[in-house]
């Protein structure tokens, strides 16, 4: 654990002052900060001590980790990682067994109250938490224990943020999100399945730069990345406006890059930065590759009526509902009809013939 500042370390790696300033500009722009703040970002990053980060992985598929540490992303993500002290990460750390846990306790003790807790994966409550444990400690217990000394918690990935796929119906493990357990710590949800790498590092960079969490929306997601829905920034939007939809994944419309609304795209109801930041260093993103957005950064996206069911379609089969309802309507209607016929025929049959004698009231 050396105490070199970020800028000193950069110089060790042979990155010039200018290179460093370019890096700060990129970070600022990515966080939609105005250019005049670049010197401020630069100043903050220069002083940034290597924050201690404890990464807890619970019921997760390592997708978030995979997304974050892809080797072929050497640029700014790699730099960031060289400059945070990742004190505990199952997949990445060399140590294992007691040594690993010891390292974690050591880090916690050393940076109590200052370290950043990053969580991916949901926490099972079923069997009082014993569906998933690390070194004999249930995720539930470990989360509580580590969270206590954390300065802030970042739930990376939809599982940690909102429960994720483990929580999908019938949710056998009783999986829940971090925020459902930890109520007394500032939490940032960085949903996505997985989130975009630059979104994760962006949040960390923001924490590094400003020492506090970014502005969050009503689902505790950084507005800078989750403030707009995909649909509004989608390059296929004009086709949506003209009602030009691809009918199948390889029909003429699909080849022409028409809107994937009819193929279940959840862009309109999904808030994320895929359409702008895109994936794999801006190479592409789901829609651009011809597949509709599945709304992975939204709570409950896994049980939202199917990824390939258009947003304007209800979950159930409308035709079937109409038929069953029709049958019910006819049944009830027939009963009412019989009733009406009887009421009417009674009225007609019991009606006394009216003669001129029956017109005058005995007043």
């Amino acid at each position, binding site marked *: 654990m050396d105490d070199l500042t970020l800028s000193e370390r950069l110089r060790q790696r042979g990155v010039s002052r200018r290179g460093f300033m370019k890096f700060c500009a990129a970070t600022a722009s990515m966080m939609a900060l105005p250019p005049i703040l670049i010197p401020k970002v630069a100043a903050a990053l220069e002083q940034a001590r290597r924050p201690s980060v404890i990464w807890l992985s619970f019921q997760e598929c390592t997708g978030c980790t995979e997304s974050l540490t892809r080797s072929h992303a050497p640029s700014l993500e790699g730099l960031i990682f060289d400059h945070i002290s990742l004190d505990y990460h199952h997949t990445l750390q060399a140590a294992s067994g007691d040594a690993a846990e010891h390292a974690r306790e050591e880090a916690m003790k050393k940076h109590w109250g200052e370290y950043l807790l990053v969580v991916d994966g949901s926490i099972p409550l079923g069997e009082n938490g014993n569906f998933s444990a690390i070194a004999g400690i249930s995720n539930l217990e470990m989360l509580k224990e580590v969270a206590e000394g954390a300065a802030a918690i970042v739930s990376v990935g939809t599982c940690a943020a909102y429960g994720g796929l483990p929580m999908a119906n019938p949710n056998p493990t009783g999986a829940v999100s971090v925020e459902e357990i930890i109520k007394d710590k500032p939490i940032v949800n960085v949903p996505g399945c997985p989130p975009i790498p630059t979104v994760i590092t962006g949040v960390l960079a923001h924490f590094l730069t400003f020492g506090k969490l970014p502005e969050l929306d009503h689902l505790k997601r950084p507005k800078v990345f989750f403030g707009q829905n995909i649909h509004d920034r989608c390059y296929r939007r004009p086709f949506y406006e003209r009602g030009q939809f691809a009918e199948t994944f390889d029909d003429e419309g699909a080849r022409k890059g028409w809107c994937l*609304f009819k193929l279940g795209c959840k862009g309109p109801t999904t808030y994320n930065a895929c359409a702008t930041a895109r994936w794999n260093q801006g190479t592409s993103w789901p829609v651009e590759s011809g597949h509709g957005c599945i709304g992975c950064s939204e709570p409950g996206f896994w049980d939202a009526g199917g990824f390939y069911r258009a947003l304007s*379609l209800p979950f159930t089969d409308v035709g079937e509902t109409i038929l069953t309802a029709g049958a019910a309507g006819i049944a009830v209607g027939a009963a009412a009809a019989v009733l009406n016929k009887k009421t009417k025929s009674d009225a007609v049959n019991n009606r006394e013939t009216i003669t001129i004698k029956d017109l005058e009231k005995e007043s």
Partner: protein
Amino acid sequence: MDANELLSWARGPGFDIALTIFVAGMLLRLLEILALGKKPDLSPPRGSGPKGGAATIMTRMLPRKQVFDKEPLRIINGYVLHIGFFIVLFLYGPHIVLFESFLGFGWPALPSGVIDAVGAITIVSLVAALVLRLNNKVLRFLSSRDDYVAWVVTLLPVLTGYLAYNHLVAPYTMMLALHLLSVELLLVVAPFTKLTHMFSFAMARWYQGYQAGRRGVES
């Protein structure tokens, strides 16, 4: 109940229940009407009943000059709000996707920019309809709770749809959920208010037209 859960409920059980009540309710009303039957007309006919019935369904789409001259604004506004409502409902891309899902066929959509404009006009027209209703002594006299309930449940879907499309007032997910819920409210309420006229208008015109056609009188 966050927006996504609300939307899922609205797209799931909400829609199912509403559609069931709508279809069953309307069929119930239809059968309740038909059950009362109609005595055949034995008078010597001059023309054909069915032709008259079909003709009247068309002729009553246009007002008579004498009545139009009396209330041009109210009548024209009636057209605006009906045609506007139909354009938004039947010619907007995503709506067509819904119809296609159970009809098995779709039709070309209007650009959603046009739909957006028509939606705005329809909302203004609906509000105008209420103002006209409140400012006319006959309508004030005639109107009952049923009229105002029918007005509200008809306005809400268009309003929420407009707000959703333009991403106003609330995030799109929530507004879309509210839009679907307002449609479901309309479907649930329709069979028990004057909104039954969406079907019974044709029956009424047919019955009067049938008699007129058979009698060889204009209708």
